[in-house]
């Protein structure tokens, strides 16, 4: 193998892009129709109708920059199949349509590839001249990002544009790691206007930029030096963000449609949990509620008739009423989320640890909102897993947390692909990614196992849950009576792992806070 610099990177990138092309004809979720509908809306209707159009149930609920992105795509789409751009064609999926949409995801992933290269540049300083390509941190990070299991199955089988969006996030992080803060802020502002779910990590950006960029110096012990506040920098930041938002929302503000757009972006009618519970704190809360209810009925403390007939399984967005524990409203989740991320933000404010401290804070914001947010989708775990890869190739402890979080988080995505034809793919890819991450990170951070015994036992248990859900349960007689059981088991088991990782990550942040700074 050529041992020079970066020759392996184009091979990895092209290899994974070709690999993605093999799944053009695999299972697609309803997200495929969602995006096709948006292509039709942006192409066939004037801008003033974009956020009012609701003849299909898949209304436009991403910020305006994404709508412009779909508009741009639609101009290419018309060369593949004009019919996909017609609004009336619900669930239209001709071969040309499928080919176009799949290729658009694969092509826009080029942003993710660029971002990966930037991140790899940031981590290559240590052990840079290793002869063995497989042991270089840059190579390991590139594989962990480019061949990430979650991205592959969510983007290229289930169908979404996460690679494109994560490209912006990782590029922004890389720019901050390279001390180019204005560029990082610009990229994040663009990202926010593409998909507003990234508001979850906006507090980390806000606190970090204010503290480390607007205050140009820190005092000797790392504390804040109020005198060094630079108004110029604050104005520069502000103008960048406002400019991007103006380009994005401007047309709609001028047309007086801002309330309508906002109501589309933030629909709070949906329930606490998705139909399949994301493995967060509320999954544990729901499970506890169910257990207490069943126990209560058994011990004759509650009357079964009095319990609300809450269905755990049905529908897409049903409200889930709790029987024993108090019900949870959106404001409660907001308060819980803020409480969970406040210590991290405070720590970064008091004692910023440079860009890597910011990255850690970003991760905690992402995980905190995943744990306590309203109607969280399990795909959101990727917002935590992908940036954690950067820390994993640099620090031993982070590598251990990464292994646990990524394996658990990736397994929690299994229910997304429920068709039998996709079973070998998800098993193969999961095994490939897990094998690689375990062996490569272990070799990189030499000195024994990266995981504690209890964590190893947990991961073995995850394997058992997988065996039960994918193999044993479908062949058992309980399949008809308790169809939700595998989903319940997966969700609850994974929430334990995710919560544990959240706490461990917090511990690393607060622990390094109490130590005097060397960064």
């Amino acid at each position: 193998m050529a041992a020079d610099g970066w020759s392996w990177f184009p091979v990895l990138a092209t290899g994974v892009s070709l690999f993605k092309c093999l799944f053009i004809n695999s299972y697609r979720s309803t997200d495929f129709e969602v995006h096709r509908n948006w292509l039709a809306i942006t192409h066939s209707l004037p801008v003033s109708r974009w956020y009012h159009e609701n003849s299909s149930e898949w209304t436009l609920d991403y910020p305006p920059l994404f709508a412009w992105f779909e508009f741009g795509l639609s101009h290419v789409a018309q060369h593949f199949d004009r019919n996909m751009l017609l609004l009336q064609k619900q669930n239209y999926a001709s071969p040309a349509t499928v080919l176009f949409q799949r290729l658009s995801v694969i092509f826009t992933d080029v942003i993710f590839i660029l971002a990966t290269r930037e991140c790899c540049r940031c981590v290559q300083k240590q052990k840079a001249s290793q002869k063995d390509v497989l042991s270089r941190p840059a190579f390991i990070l590139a594989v962990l990002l480019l061949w990430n299991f979650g991205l592959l199955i969510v983007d290229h089988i289930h169908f979404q544009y996460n690679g494109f969006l994560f490209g912006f996030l990782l590029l922004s992080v890389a720019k901050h790691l390279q001390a180019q803060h204005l560029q990082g802020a610009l990229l994040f502002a663009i990202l926010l206007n593409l998909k507003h779910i990234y508001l979850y990590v906006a507090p980390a950006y806000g606190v970090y930029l204010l503290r480390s960029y607007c205050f140009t110096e820190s005092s000797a012990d790392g504390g804040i030096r109020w005198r060094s506040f630079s108004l110029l920098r604050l104005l520069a930041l502000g103008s960048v963000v406002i400019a991007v938002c103006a380009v994005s929302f401007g047309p709609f503000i001028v047309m007086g449609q801002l309330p309508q757009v906002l109501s589309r972006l933030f629909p709070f009618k949906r329930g606490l949990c998705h139909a399949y519970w994301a493995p967060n704190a509320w999954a544990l809360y729901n499970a506890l509620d169910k257990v207490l209810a069943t126990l209560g009925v058994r011990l004759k403390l509650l009357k079964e008739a009095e319990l609300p007939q809450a269905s755990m399984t049905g529908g897409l967005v049903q409200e889930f009423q709790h029987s024993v524990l108090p019900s949870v409203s959106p404001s409660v989740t907001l308060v819980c989320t803020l409480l969970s991320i406040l210590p991290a933000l405070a720590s970064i404010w008091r004692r910023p640890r440079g860009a890597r401290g910011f990255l850690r804070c970003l991760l905690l914001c992402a995980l905190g909102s995943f744990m306590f947010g309203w109607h969280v989708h399990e795909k959101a775990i990727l917002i935590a897993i992908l940036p954690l890869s950067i820390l994993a190739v640099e620090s031993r402890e982070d590598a251990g947390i990464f292994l646990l979080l990524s394996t658990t988080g990736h397994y929690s995505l299994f229910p997304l692909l429920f068709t039998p034809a996709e079973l070998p793919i998800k098993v193969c890819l999961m095994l490939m990614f897990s094998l690689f991450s375990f062996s490569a990170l272990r070799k990189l951070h030499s000195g024994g196992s990266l995981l504690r015994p209890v964590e190893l036992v947990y991961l073995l248990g995850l394997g058992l849950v997988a065996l039960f859900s994918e193999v044993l349960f479908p062949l058992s007689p309980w399949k008809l009576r308790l169809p939700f059981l595998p989903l319940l088991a997966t969700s609850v088991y994974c929430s334990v792992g995710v919560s544990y990782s959240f706490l461990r990550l917090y511990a690393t942040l607060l622990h390094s806070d109490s130590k005097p700074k060397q960064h």
Partner: protein
Amino acid sequence: MQTWSLVSICVLLGVAVRWGVSLNSYSGAGKPPMFGDYEAQRHWQEVTYNLPIREWYFNSTDNDLAYWGLDYPPLTAYHSWLCAYIANIIDPEWVKLHKSRGYESPEHKLFMRTTVLVADLLIFIPAVVLYCLYLTDGSSKKKVSVLLCILLYPGLILIDYGHFQYNGVSLGLALWGVLGLGLGWDALASIAFSLALNYKQMELYHALPFFCYLLGKCIKAGLIGRGFLLLVRIAAAVVVTFALCWLPFLSDPVQALQVVRRIFPVARGLFEDKVANTWCSLNVLIKIRSLLSADAQLHLSLVFTLLAVLPSSIKLLTRPTFWHFKLALVNSSLGFFLFSYQVHEKSILLAALPVCLLLNDLPFMSVWFLLASTFSMLPLLLKDGLLAPYVVTSTGFLLISIYLLSALDHSTEDELQLSTYRKLFFFPLKLDLGCLARWKFYISVAAMVGLSIASVTLDPPSHLPDLFPVLVSTTSYLLFLGTFIHFNILQFSGPNSKKSQKKSN
């Protein structure tokens, strides 16, 4: 990283690519009344499951031989029976006699694809892994690179998981035979190869090298004494294996004869469809199919085939080393492909397997040939609707093999052993033959890409409706002929110091 984890990742990647290809269409999908190879395999499951063994190869009201009659040796039939047994448990509709003709459904496709994957996982993939780990020279990284390239060879993946066949079983068993010979377990190797022969009769393309190698070894060990014992052991192993496979048919000579008649149909013509061998390419200029009688065609191909394969096998007989054995495998199977009777384009896989085994020693020529072999099957793949997987797997294979094996770096004149060409054709000394070879490679890849694009996008002129298949097969023929000549020269050219130091087993 540890070797076992690298090997596992490569195997998993190979399986993932295979399954990705299997999501696409298969031969004869939705094309009544005859459908294609997929329906043939399903039909064999139906026949073997519902009818008694003595009726499998005979024409009857229950078994219409004109509709995909069994024309492979008994082991294929037993394999079909096993698959049918499982199919019947899952859904009897899949193998109901007569009623399941032309049965197609997503679940059935999933089942059939799974049978191919299981067979591959049990037979072909372990053989490849063991071959790369134990019979390949170099560092462990090199071995894993070779493993990945062999597992990603597009031709086999596209035919087995796309078009639908079970070549992984016969090629895998033959590879077990090669593995056994490489490790010195001659009797076991003979058993493996006999099983391969009993699975698909086309493995006869490999039979001559196996025979000559083993005979050569016995002679070398002394025909009186150890060599003779070895010969007896091998002969016994082969005879017993054949007997066990043909047991149900040996009770009645009519049975055995009928099976032989089915697996060697000599009533057909010199070639069918467009195939990249001499006769089809010759037919473009001189219409030999109409000029000569059927018997004359048979004799012509027999003579030329023998002329093509005998030299290399006789050389192997005199020099039974493992290196010469591998070269002879290539030369024999290519010779059969180029000159034999009733050759199908899929038979190139029989030549591709031995070339895969040479990826480590001769990366440049091997990659070139393997790419050409996939390209030669383009018309077949287009008919099956497998264009996208073809493009993806071929590009991926080219990229990976050139990068991992540094194929282009190993194309100097020395490494390609082009000195013989220099002597034969009196090239001027200044001409860098290695550079010339590289340019020929680039031009041929460009031609392959160009013809692929043209076959898909352009319409042939109305008076030449078969223009593109003919162009594809003629180009492939020239590439195959070049490879055939080169590997023969390699086998006959004197001792290149690197090769003669190989363990002479």
